[in-house]
């Protein structure tokens, strides 16, 4: 898989990191479908992907625990690349240029741009909240130990955090489709030099030693 020998490609994610990302992504997809099925009746038919409504209800929280663990590893690996810098504030102020593909007007981006960092921190906030509220509403195992008021609040917060997270991931997926050459980073592990220079010049200079 490694592209070490191809001079026009730069490694962005190791095989272990890709595996970790895709376990998180697949469990997220299963969680969103099973969760949304119970959230709105128009989506109840999603339960058919899980072997019926009762199986959907039973499986969802266990998949949630797997996703939490998988995301935990991902977050541990990447958090330090996601600290906000002064440039990020400027980048966010020029969001209109971002969506119009006018990258020449943006400040230099390192490994991640401000949008990617914001997504990271949104996940850091919502995923643990989904785990905690999920445990409170998990029947029959844990819910009976909680006060009814706490359960009601957890139900609302669980749905709210899921909404924020799913909206965030829609943007994340779209960004990967929109910025051509990005998908390869997470599928094959590498990006072209030109892609790196164009979208992540700061990172490009660091990994190529100034080239």
């Amino acid at each position, binding site marked *: 898989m490694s592209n070490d020998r191809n001079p026009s490609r730069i490694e962005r994610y190791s095989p272990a990191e890709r595996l970790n990302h895709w376990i998180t992504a697949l469990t997220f997809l299963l969680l969103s479908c099973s969760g949304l099925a119970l959230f709105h*009746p128009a989506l109840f038919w999603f339960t058919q992907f899980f072997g019926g409504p009762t199986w959907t209800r039973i499986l969802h929280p266990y998949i949630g625990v797997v996703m939490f663990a998988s995301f935990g590893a991902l977050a541990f690996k990447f958090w330090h690349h996601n600290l906000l810098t002064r440039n990020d504030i400027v980048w966010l102020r020029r969001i209109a240029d971002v969506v119009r593909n006018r990258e020449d007007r943006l400040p230099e981006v390192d490994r991640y741009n401000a949008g990617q960092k914001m997504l990271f921190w949104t996940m850091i906030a919502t995923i643990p909240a989904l785990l905690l509220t999920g445990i409170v509403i998990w029947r029959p195992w844990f819910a009976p130990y909680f006060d009814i008021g706490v359960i009601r609040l957890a139900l609302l917060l669980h749905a709210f955090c899921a909404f924020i997270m799913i909206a965030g991931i829609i*943007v994340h997926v779209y960004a990967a489709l929109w910025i051509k050459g990005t998908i390869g980073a997470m599928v094959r592990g590498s990006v072209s030099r030109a892609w790196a220079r164009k979208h992540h010049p700061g990172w490009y200079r660091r990994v190529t030693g100034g080239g």
Partner: protein
Amino acid sequence: MALQSLDIVRRSATTTPSPQQRQTTEVAKLIDVTKCIGCKACQSACQEWNDLREEVGINEGSYQNPHDLTANSWTLMRFTETEENGTLEWLIRKDGCMHCADPGCLKACPSPGAIIQYSNGIVDFHEENCIGCGYCIAGCPFDIPRLSPKDGKAYKCTLCSDRVSVGLEPACIKSCPTQALVFGSKEDMIEHANERIADLKERGFENAGLYDPPGVGGTHVMYVLHHADKPQLYDGLPQSPRISGLVGLWKGIFKPLATAALALTALAGFFHYVTVGPNETGEDEEEEKA
């Protein structure tokens, strides 16, 4: 119940009208706690008719047995001792589903057709559609539904919907030796209650009154209480029950708004792609320095 019903006014997790061509008379069970002697005949009758048996439990120093509602015990006599009114009083209340006009259980339930409300006011669980999520428990202001450890389905009083649909009164009514339990049209039950309340007031219970809480749109199980001003004396009967604001928000405005917002987010991405277009790394940029 597998029988076809043509009088379903509300069905859980369903956005179009259910068969409701037939309008039936609104019914009610009236529980006159001032007449109840705590004999539990109704509790036994409920188990008899519904063919359920409670496990033999242990005595914890009270007549209350079992200690709480269960998936087998859909009604329960709750016993309380109080000295609030200047003398020792032994209050007995038959607890069970209130058959709310605005049922929180039904509002919360995510499974289509697991909970239905008939035009006669009965709120019924259809366990074959129940997925065991327990949302109904969070939705109910009276702490009524119970998940069965045996099959993971939620159970509660049906107000004997099977008997009522063929013109019989609920089993508990039939068994009550003091006529503390009566059943009929809601209108008649209110009238009957008012007679009882007038009588109680005459005999010194100034605060006697009817419990038909407007916060849940009224109920189809009502109480005559000697202390209607303090319903919580009767083992925590809520003073002014209503569907929790949290549940109202979650199942009210948030559900359609959030669903629409997610659909629009995805749609916005698509429109961005077909207008602004993808951000490509050009051939020239590829060659520039490589």
